[in-house]
């Protein structure tokens, strides 16, 4: 297939024409012409296709809340060309069989590269290492391992996991939450949780694990990735570790860049998430950390949930919120419109670095001739109010419902094929 994108602005810079042919960028220049299809991309910013390190697609197990197909649609509409599917499915993705199943479902959907994450421990039980090598060697080529949703809290086991995946060129993505500190916790431990009577999930429960893990990673010379960093203290710890040369990378979610614990005031469980929404000071530190590169990547932690798991008491609700379709808009709102990131840096944090962390060869590449045509074109001047009913996800637990956000994904290309055209998913 051949496609000409007329007048697009790579990284928000000068407008050019981009000719896409056979899945790669064939030419970039002014006044290109073709007999094939042409898309008027005047005014649209073009970035490399986004890569999500942290997505819950819920299949297998909770197909009532999301499937690989519906999650792929949401991802494509959000401008993603690759997503990492977290391992906490039912059954858990802790064997080559399960990760290959998810990988195959992703291939069948064909809208984004669905890259399975393998569980670190059998059944996320935190006791015995899963067959990490088998998953790495499978068709799914797993490189990111995580018990996300649960912390690998046993320090000896965490050390072994960090060491073991070195042989696989893999990385352990840690859900940093010391399980014995936030017992039954629902909220950040602080003034607001004290008043609302919601048990605190204190920053120290996250920071203590990060501090331990960066020291372990340094000790064994392994790569460590920290999931959904949520506190100012965590940013400080990671900054310190990087300054020592520790091979640590970190991600922040769009919701932690935008929302604060003030959202819990009405006890609307849509805003219950793990780690919890924190204070405005934490949000500022996370934005600064993302801006200066201490935090490497934005990852959605897209977590679909059924209505009955959210329309209930706060304590009974499941934690998590949707993120794929609004991630880029939130980053534009919090980081671009505020002057904290350039478009090139957005590409770096949402595509280049996550692809490097996940060791995805064909993703996160520059917009240049000969590179795979994984691209997103967005209209930075558009603004829209988020309507959960209009989302492609099977679930409706968007924390942005009713909120006006900037920027709209107009087209997405996966290896030269349009997965999204004019805001409409193609499969």
């Amino acid at each position, binding site marked *: 297939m051949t496609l000409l994108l007329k007048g697009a602005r790579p990284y928000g810079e000068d407008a050019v024409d981009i000719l896409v042919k056979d899945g790669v960028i064939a030419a970039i220049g002014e006044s290109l012409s073709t007999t094939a299809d042409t898309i008027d991309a005047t005014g649209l910013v073009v970035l490399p296709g986004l890569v999500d390190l942290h997505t819950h697609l819920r299949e297998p197990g909770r197909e009532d809340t999301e499937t690989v197909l519906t999650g792929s649609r949401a991802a494509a509409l959000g401008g993603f060309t690759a997503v990492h599917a977290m391992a906490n499915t039912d059954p858990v993705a802790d064997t080559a069989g399960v990760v290959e199943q998810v990988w195959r479902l992703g291939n069948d959907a064909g809208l984004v590269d669905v890259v399975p994450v393998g569980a670190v421990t059998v059944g996320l039980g935190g006791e015995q290492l899963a067959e990490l090598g088998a998953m790495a060697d499978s068709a799914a080529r797993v490189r990111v391992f995580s018990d996300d949703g649960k912390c690998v809290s046993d320090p000896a086991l965490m050390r072994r996991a960090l060491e073991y995946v070195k042989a696989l060129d893999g990385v352990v993505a840690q859900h940093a939450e010391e399980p014995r500190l936030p017992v039954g916790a629902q909220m950040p431990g602080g*003034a607001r949780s*004290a*008043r609302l009577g*919601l*048990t605190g999930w204190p920053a120290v429960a996250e920071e203590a694990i990060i501090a331990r893990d960066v020291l372990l990673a340094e000790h064994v010379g392994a790569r460590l990735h920290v999931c959904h960093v949520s506190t100012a203290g965590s940013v400080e710890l990671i900054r310190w570790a990087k300054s020592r040369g520790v091979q640590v990378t970190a991600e922040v979610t769009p919701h932690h860049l935008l929302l604060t614990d003030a959202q819990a005031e*009405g006890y609307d469980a849509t805003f219950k998430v793990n780690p919890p929404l924190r204070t405005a000071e934490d949000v500022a530190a996370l934005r600064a950390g993302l801006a200066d590169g201490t935090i490497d990547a934005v990852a959605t932690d897209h977590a679909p949930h059924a209505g*009955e798991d959210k329309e209930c008491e706060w*304590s009974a609700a499941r934690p998590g919120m949707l993120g794929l379709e609004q991630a880029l808009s939130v980053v534009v709102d919090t980081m671009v419109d505020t002057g904290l990131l350039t478009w090139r840096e957005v590409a770096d944090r949402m595509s280049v670095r996550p692809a490097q962390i996940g060791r995805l060869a064909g993703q996160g590449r520059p917009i240049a001739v000969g590179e795979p045509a994984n691209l997103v074109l967005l209209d930075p001047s558009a603004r829209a109010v988020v309507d959960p009913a209009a989302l492609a996800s099977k679930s409706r637990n968007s924390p942005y419902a009713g909120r006006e956000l900037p920027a709209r994904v107009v087209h997405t290309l996966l290896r030269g094929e349009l997965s999204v055209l004019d805001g409409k998913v193609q499969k």
Partner: protein
Amino acid sequence: MRRHLLESADLDRSDATLVLDTAAQIESALAGREVKKLPTLRGRTVVNLFFEDSTRTRISFELAAKRLSADVINFSAKGSSVSKGESLKDTALTLEAMGADGIVVRHGSSGAPHRLATWVAGSVVNAGDGTHEHPTQALLDAYTIRQRLGRLEGVKVVITGDVLHSRVARSNVWLLHTLGAEVTLVAPPTLLPVGVGSWPVRVSYDLDAVLPQADVVMMLRVQAERMNASFFPSAREYSRRYGLDATRMAKLGDDAIVMHPGPMNRGMEIAADVADSPRSTIVEQVGNGVSVRMAVLYLLLGGPA
């Protein structure tokens, strides 16, 4: 217009004073009468929706509603569809369909009354939610203090016990502050919330040090099972450091009163001879609870539906 009583934190001074004044008028209007019943809420339905056992609170609300001639339905979660897995929302919609004008809810989860209020058209009264609030308890406590001491402004109130897990403490902190009292919380640091520094209170770890200045000492129930979670080493040590016995009570000023929301652990946080002393308002608190809850039900349910 909002028509709920969800937390004392959002009662302003005039709201709170209106409730207390109304309770006082109701109490004096009913004093000495043979017919202790008013026709005010005739034809209105009040549902007591209790997901936790609390016989005393439920009875108090039931009596309050009946004295205002409302129809009262007691809906206990035990033995109902709730115990068969029905969600809070479905329960709410069921009660709504049955035409409940007011729902008095006790729930183990903080914020459950707030959620309920978004699903029903009737008024929701929080009768205790998790470790969040119990606003009518605070109102009846304030009423009792005002009745005994004649004022709330500047009254020094010491609240002692398991503040961390206490909805009574939270409701009292906000309401008493709103009404001008000075609150001091006394507890071992393990039983105070981490964010307590942002509350409009003083904090002390030493009960003996604060008793001589206190006008009111409010003792909170301390559950022995907290001991197992290492909040304190033993019941005996807790009682020795934070319990109110006759020796400690002797440090109080002449007019100071001793309160307890009940149910008491005699011998744990309060000694029997203290609970039964003339300083104790524990029995009055129960009676005042009915008047205050009548006032709340009248103000919330008496007007246009």
